[in-house]
């Protein structure tokens, strides 16, 4: 198999530090050798390759930006972005798994958790000995998380949780679920709900034609009692879960570029090899125009992800900027995956090729972690100063 080259039209890889390039190469080899050989079958079988979890953990893919004292590696934001890009070059579902573990479980524990919670969970999550999930979205509250119906009620020294969460990546396989619910005063609070807690179940969502190599679940909370020590003490209000989403979206903005690069490279190689009317498909004007458009769009996505990464490292990244990169890069990747699947002709519908799988996956990425349209409103608010959400 020809090794993945990765489009680098503007020599942006040269902007990466030595450490960031090493992260890229490490994750790239892992994806080539361990993910790509099995991902088509996993996707077909609707199965997350859980056998890869120990390896992913030992590679350091879970929460690498977490400080070393809690089991992370204290990696920089661009290195983390590069990791997401390379993982999603393999599959959006695999990247989603790692994103949730790092940005939506380890991040809130680190940011809003007590010292005991950090010590108890972060090293285990980093080692892959525990899997986590993030329960914010509900069947009737997606783009408007403030409209959640889940409730937490103080009861003696503990809390009672009731409600339903939906579209929760890793839910069924999680040892710890970060569940968000409103108290009597309407304040959103976060809780660590452990697997096996009475009244708590996480049935898997079946029948998906997207992110099939990833576990998606419902979380059902029926009079679930947790001690106050399971509440994230520093999380008060909707800002807390939203800040976690900003972290995750940052990784998605990078990840989508990886999926687009995978599709582009596949379509490029195919169209150079495929002979039609006695010459390579790539030698005709229509395919070249498609390739030129895609190369340009991917390059723009690379620029955007790199720039938000550097801003994040300086502590200057706003959630509006993350919205722009997530919205642009995912929409770009989805469009490109469709064009690539088209360029592969009939072969494009086979799971042996990757573009079709990326295309189906990206349909999810397009509407999760803030739909494309909601991010339009975030950018709209940033440029006009006039929120138009409601």
């Amino acid at each position: 198999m020809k090794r993945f080259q990765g489009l680098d039209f503007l020599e942006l890889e040269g902007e990466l530090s030595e450490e960031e390039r090493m992260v890229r190469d490490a994750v790239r080899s892992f994806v080539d050798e361990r993910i790509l050989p099995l991902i088509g079958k996993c996707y077909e079988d609707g199965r997350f390759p859980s056998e890869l979890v120990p390896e992913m953990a030992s590679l350091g893919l879970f929460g690498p930006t977490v400080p070393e004292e809690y089991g992370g590696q204290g990696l920089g934001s661009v290195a983390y972005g590069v990791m997401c890009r390379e993982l999603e070059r393999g599959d959006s579902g695999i990247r989603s798994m790692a994103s949730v573990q790092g940005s939506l479980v380890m991040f809130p524990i680190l940011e809003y958790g007590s010292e005991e919670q950090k010590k108890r969970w972060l090293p285990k999550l980093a080692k892959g000995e525990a899997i986590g999930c993030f329960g914010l979205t509900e069947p009737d509250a997606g783009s408007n998380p403030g409209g959640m119906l889940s409730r937490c009620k103080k009861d003696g020294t503990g809390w009672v949780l009731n409600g339903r969460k939906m579209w929760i990546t890793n839910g069924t396989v999680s040892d710890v679920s970060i569940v968000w619910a409103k108290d009597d005063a309407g304040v959103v609070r976060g809780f660590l709900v452990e697997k096996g807690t009475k009244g708590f179940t996480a049935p898997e969502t079946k029948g998906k034609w997207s992110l099939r190599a990833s576990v998606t679940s419902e979380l059902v909370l029926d009079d679930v009692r947790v001690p106050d020590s399971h509440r994230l003490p520093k999380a008060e209000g909707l800002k807390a879960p939203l800040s976690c989403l900003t972290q995750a979206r940052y990784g998605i903005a990078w990840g989508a570029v990886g999926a687009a690069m995978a599709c582009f490279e596949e379509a490029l190689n195919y169209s150079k090899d495929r002979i039609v009317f006695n010459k390579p498909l790539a030698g005709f004007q229509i395919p070249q125009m498609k390739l030129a458009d895609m190369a340009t769009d991917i390059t723009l996505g690379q620029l955007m992800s790199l720039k938000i990464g550097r801003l994040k490292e300086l502590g200057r990244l706003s959630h509006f900027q993350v919205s722009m990169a997530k919205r642009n890069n995912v929409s770009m990747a989805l469009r490109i995956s469709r064009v690539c699947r088209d360029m592969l002709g009939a072969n494009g519908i086979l799971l042996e090729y990757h573009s079709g799988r990326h295309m189906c996956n990206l349909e999810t990425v397009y509407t999760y972690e803030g739909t494309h349209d909601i991010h339009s409103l975030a950018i709209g608010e940033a440029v006009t100063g006039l929120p138009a959400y409601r």
Partner: protein
Amino acid sequence: MDVAVCVKRVPSTDTRVKVGASGTSIDPTGVQYELNPFDEFAVEEALRVKEKTGGGTVTVICLGPGDAQKELRNELARGADKAVLLKDDQLEARDAYSIARALADQIQKLNVRVVMMGKQAVDRDNGHVGSMVAAMLGYACVTEVVKMEIQGDTARCEREIEGGAREVVEAQLPAVFTAQKGLNEPRYVKLPGIMAAKKKPLEEVAAPAVAPKLTVVEMSLPPARQAGRFMGKGKEAVPELLRRLREESKVL
């Protein structure tokens, strides 16, 4: 046990080689470089020797241009403890002797009993350096090793010989071992290793000048393949095909 590993930075194996203007070396334009694949087995085995013998230091040595720091840093990330770059931006002017001499001098300073190398570098394909270094140092040499175990002062090795047969040898340390594919499965570079590598020593020293005893006078690519010719169709074409294979191509 302390181990030294000698590695080389070579054009990546999927490079389409072109001969440079000098006519004696390849054109480096657009060429990507990587660690010689056989050297990955050597580094892995060095790490295993260290682990199995309960500690020590693995030092990776590379003779090459300044850019080879990248390959060395990667091996530090994989688990090596120290790296030494014998810097020489004119690597192509050296022959195996000149490389071996510089490596042997460096190894001598380290005072190690186990030296690992790949069985050959895939750029020039000579496979000389391992044996030469061993001879210069007066060490035992075991080439094309596919299995090795160190017990005290002895290394018991399996090596590949002609026709897929295997030979088991015992070598007295100190010794140079050259790694063949199959010796082990090299471990991945991991993110924690990459962070740790930043703090590990990477020393850069000018490689000692050693006059080569051999120079490349010409390098050429194989002639372009000629287009195939049709001798006709069906059974009738067979006699003519045979005649040409016998008389023109002389392959029968």
